């Protein structure tokens, strides 16, 4: 799988580097997988529009073909099957229920941000836009073209299933990211589900205490502080964070395995004299 991703981007070495490490998250999340709770269809979900224009389809198809050729070249068909059966990265943007957050909404559909997503192998941008749904809908429709699919809806009670779609799971999907307003309810729910998170404080809010929380989270390494106007950097940092987290988990697992091995070794060493004593005793009995 890593081989495939490297063949895709031979020119952009930095991007492939992060991608290559980040890809390992898939294996990790198998350990950390929490049973997904939000499987039931919610009734509150009124407006959900799937925007997959023909143009986007055309953009997508050659990309898939490219993948195929590259993987054929590398003679790695098994990897291709696994890659295509897995869901791609999702970027889920949420502004919460209480207030709108237009600056964030307009930022995520700028060409730079969309290209950044495409470069990092995201294939779906899902946006929960709250009260600005109609405005955002118009903005998306007026976009000339988009390298990723854009889905959008106003609000739903069951946000958990959308968050989980951004969480990496072994041989199910690649880790994505949730870009959220800095409301504590949203942050807590996303972090509880162990989904990579970028927190974007709303600078127009009173006394801007949201920035405080975002800095706190950044310093503890739980989330990334996304600043308006610099969201592409935040996405890259989030992917790095996922990769680091993954490496740490791998290391931890390796340590655990080593400990287990040493235990087994001790057990075997302890066993040998024990069996001998039993045999000795038997012999004594026979004698």
């Amino acid at each position, binding site marked *: 799988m890593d081989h495939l991703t490297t063949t895709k981007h031979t020119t952009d070495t930095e991007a492939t580097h992060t991608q290559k490490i980040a890809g390992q998250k898939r294996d990790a999340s198998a350990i950390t997988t929490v049973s997904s709770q939000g499987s039931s269809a919610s009734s509150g979900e009124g407006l959900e529009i799937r925007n997959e224009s023909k143009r986007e389809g055309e953009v997508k198809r050659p990309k898939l073909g490219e993948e195929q050729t590259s993987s054929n070249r590398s003679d790695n068909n098994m990897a291709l099957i696994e890659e295509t059966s897995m869901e791609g990265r999702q970027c889920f943007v949420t502004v919460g229920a209480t207030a709108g957050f237009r600056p964030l909404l307009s930022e995520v559909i700028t060409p730079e941000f969309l290209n950044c997503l495409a470069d990092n192998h995201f294939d779906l941008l899902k946006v929960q836009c709250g009260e600005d749904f109609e405005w955002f809908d118009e903005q998306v429709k007026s976009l000339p073209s988009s390298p990723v699919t854009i889905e959008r809806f106003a609000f739903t009670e069951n946000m958990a299933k959308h968050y989980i779609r951004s969480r990496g799971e072994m041989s199910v999907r690649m880790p994505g990211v949730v870009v959220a307003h800095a409301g504590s309810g949203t942050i*807590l729910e996303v972090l509880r589900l162990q989904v990579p998170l970028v927190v974007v404080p709303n600078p127009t809010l009173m006394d801007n205490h949201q920035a405080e929380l975002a800095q706190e989270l950044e310093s503890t390494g739980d989330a990334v502080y996304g600043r308006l106007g610099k969201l592409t950097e935040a996405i890259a940092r989030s992917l790095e964070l996922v990769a680091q987290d993954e490496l740490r988990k791998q290391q931890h697992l390796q340590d655990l395995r080593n400990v287990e091995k040493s235990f087994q070794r001790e057990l075997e060493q302890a066993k040998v004299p024990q069996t001998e004593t039993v045999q000795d005793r038997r012999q004594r009995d026979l004698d």
Partner: protein
Amino acid sequence: WLISLVITVGIVLGTFIVYRHFEMIRRRQKPGGSWLVPSNTPQPNAAGTQVPNTTSLPAIYFTYILGSGGHTAEMIETIKQSFRGQANIHRRYIISIGDTSSLGKARLLEATIKDAYPGEDDRAGTSDIFLIRRARKVHQPLYTAPFTCLISAFHAANALTRMPNPRSTKDHGKGFRYPHVIVTNGPANGFIVCLVAHLLKIFYLVPENRAKVVYIETWARSKTMSLTGKLFLKTGIADVVGVQHESLAKIFKGSQYIGPVSAGFLRR
């Protein structure tokens, strides 16, 4: 003479309230004193810290005030973190009318607790939900606000003094007459409910050792206190002002660091 009578009654009432207020604060045990330390055999809770063992008490009655959005999410998390299955616990949730999302979350939490103790197992305790009127609706003109505040105050008094139905006829029913602890984390309704509880205590309508007010500052605040938090701290209504960041407890005297109770899963 009517005016002078009103003024006299007002002065007497005012003096009485002020006296009772400070008398109650004076009699209150100092924060950080020995009372927060586990008394009898401590039980370690999920977070690993030690809490007092309450299994042998006849009645434990908590009132939780759920507010909007993030407040509710944090409060639900706090309840989950502090939950231990005991048959002697009653939980009451106070929610504003029209706040369907909080109502749904409270019901979901109770359903989860019930599921954890199926059949005859009564360790899930009992619970009920009280709806009170919002103190001020969005876009409501300001001059009507005092009246609606009064109405919601009456609703709050009702929610604080009404005995829990599932307990009234059972053993130790009297123990559930008034809540032991009121927990809030900052919604507007929370302050009104706590103020009403304080007034009820001032006028001897609720015993002083009941309806203890616990204010938990939201986890989102790490360097500054919210307005509600400052209000609770300054007025002395809250028996405990808990904060979830150590840095905040150092800045605001009188507040106590209680650990990240609404983000417990982040603890490493």
